[in-house]
C-alpha cells in the first residue's frame, strides 16, 4: 500500500469532517464530483443468518435515507443557509470521528476507501444523538485533487434512535 496516498486520504477525510463540523457546507459540497451518488439505505433484520451484508440493507427501489445527486445534495446544503429550516435552527453541534480507514481496489483513476464513523450531535439545551456506522467511498483523482465520486453510508441502527437526520453523516 502506498503510504503517501494513505496519508493523503486520511487528511482528505479529516478535512471533510472539519468542514462538516464547522458547518462550511458549501465548501463541503465541492469535495464531491459532479456525478456523485450519495446513498444511504435502510437497515433490516433478516430471518436467516445473512450470507452477505446486502441482505440486511434496503435495495435500490426500496427505502433509503439518502439517494442524492449533486443537485439534491445542494438543496439540502442550502437549507443551512436559508432563514427558516427549523430542524437546524438553532444548528446542531456535531463532531465527526472518522477511523478504521481501509484502502481497497485502485484502478489508477479512482479507488475505494472504507471508514467507520461516530457522529455525535447535540443541539439546543441538551438534545443528544450518536450515529454510528461505516462509509464506503469511491475517491477519484481529478486535476491533482481527490473528490468523492460515490458514497454509501451504512448506519448500524435498524430503528433510527434520533428524531431526524438533519445533518450529514
Amino acid at each position, binding site marked *: 500500500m502506498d503510504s503517501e496516498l494513505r496519508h493523503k486520504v486520511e487528511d482528505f477525510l479529516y478535512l471533510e469532517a472539519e468542514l462538516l463540523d464547522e458547518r462550511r457546507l458549501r465548501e463541503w459540497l465541492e469535495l464531491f464530483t459532479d456525478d456523485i451518488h450519495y446513498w*444511504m439505505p*435502510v437497515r*433490516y*433484520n*433478516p*430471518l*436467516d443468518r445473512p450470507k452477505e451484508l446486502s441482505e440486511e440493507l*434496503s435495495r435500490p*427501489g*426500496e*427505502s*433509503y*435515507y*439518502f*439517494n*442524492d445527486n449533486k443537485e*439534491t445534495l445542494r*438543496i*439540502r446544503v*442550502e*437549507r443551512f443557509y*436559508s*432563514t*427558516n*429550516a*427549523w*430542524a437546524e435552527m438553532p444548528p446542531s453541534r456535531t463532531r465527526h470521528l472518522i477511523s478504521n480507514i481501509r484502502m481497497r481496489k485502485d484502478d489508477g483513476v479512482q479507488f475505494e476507501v472504507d471508514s467507520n464513523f461516530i457522529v455525535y450531535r447535540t443541539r439546543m439545551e441538551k438534545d443528544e444523538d450518536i450515529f454510528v456506522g461505516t462509509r464506503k467511498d469511491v475517491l477519484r483523482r481529478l486535476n491533482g485533487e481527490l473528490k468523492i465520486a460515490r458514497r454509501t453510508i451504512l448506519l448500524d441502527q*435498524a*430503528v*433510527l*434512535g*434520533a*428524531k*431526524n*437526520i*438533519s445533518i450529514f453523516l
Partner: protein
Amino acid sequence: MEIKSLVDPEGGLVNRRIFADHEIYELERERLFARCWLYLGHESEVANAGDFVTAYMGEEPVILCRDLSGRLRAFLNICRHRGNRVCRADRGNAKLFTCSYHGWTYSTDGKLAVVPMAEAFRNLDRDQWGLIPVAQLDSYKGLIFATFDPEAPTLAEYLGDMAWYLDILLDRREGGTEVSGPHRWVVDANWKTAAENFGGDGYHIASTHGSARELGIDTTTSETRKWNKGRQISCGDGHVLVAWICPPDDAGPWFAQPVAELVDYMKEHAPEIESRLGATRARKVSPSAGTVFPNLSVHWLTRTIRVWHPRGPDKMEIWSWAIVDKAAPAKIKDVIRFVSQCRFSPTGVFEQDDMDNWIQVTAAARSLIAKRFPANYQMGVSEEITETDLRGRLASRWSDSNQLSLYMHWAKVLEAKSWGEIKSAKHG
C-alpha cells in the same frame, strides 16, 4: 375521569393533558388501540404464501403473514408458553415460527405445531395454545387493517366516507399500489400531535416548512396557492383530511404534482384515472394529507403512508412507507419514491422540521403551569360550505374544524364502554 371535558369544541379549547397524561394513555391503549381498526401492512409486502412482516398494533407486537394456504393472518408475536417473541426478523418468508426459548413452533396459520417433549406436559391440548390472533382482519385496496375487538364494525363501515378519498391514492391505476419501506424512527412526542397535524394542519406549512418554499421544493406550486381554495374535510368517526378543490377548467389528476415528470405521467394516464375514479375525484378534489383514525396518516401528493405507533404518553415510533402505482414504469416509481422520501422521512426536507414542534407541544403538556391554560383550536369561522358532489363535512382550509372533530371522536371512543355506545353517539 371526564374525558369529554378535555375537549371543548364550542370554545375551541383542548386541555393539554391529553398529550402527556399517563392515565389517559392507559385508557387509549385499552379503549382505542385495543378496539379500533389499525393499519398493519400492505398486501404487496406479503404477496406470497409464507411472506411475513412484523408490525405493531399500538404497543402490541404482531406478525402479519400470508399462511401457506394463501390466507392473510395476524397474531401477537408472543409465544403462548412463556411469552418470548416467536419472530425476531422484520420481514421474510417462513414456513414455521419457532420460539428460541424452548422451541415451541407455530405454523403460519398460528397453530401450535410442535412442542418439544410434549409428553412431559400435563394434558397439553395444542389446539388451545396457538398464537393469539387478532379478532378481525381485512384489507381495503391493498391496505391491511386489523382489530383486537370482535365487536368492532366491519372495516368498510369503519372507514366510511374516508375510503372514497383513499381511493384517490389507492385506485388510480389497474393493479393498485405497492409500498417500499418502512422507515422507522423514534420521536419524543405524543402520537396525536402527528395525527392532528396530518389530519388538517394546512396552517403550519408556511411557517414550519418555509425553507421548502424558499428552496423551490414546495409540494404545492405557487399556482395552487394562488387558487387557494383549500378545504378541511371531516368524514366522521375521526377520519379527517385536507384537500384542494381544483379550478374546474384546468384540473386533472396532475393537479399540484411537484415535479414535471409526474405531471407528464398523470396527464398520460388521466383517462384511465378518470375512468376509475370518476370526474369529481379525478378533476375536482385533490387531497393533500389526512388521518385515518386513529394513527394512520396519508399524504396523497407526496405518496407516503405512515403509522404513529404510541410508545407511552410522550413517545412515538414513526413507521413510514412510500406508496406508488404498481402499473407505473420503473423510472416513474423511482421518481415518486424520491419525491416522497426526499420530503417525508427522517431525512425528509419537510418532515425533519416537524419533529421539534411535536416534541415541544408534548413537553408543554408536562408543564404544570401551562396545563392550567388550554391549547387554542379556535381557527376558522363557522361558515357552512357545501360541495354537493363531495363527501363529509367541509370547512375552510384555515380552520381547526378537523382537529376538533378528531378529538371529539377520540373522547367519545375513550368514554364509550362498547362499540355499541360509539356507534349510537355518532357525530357528523
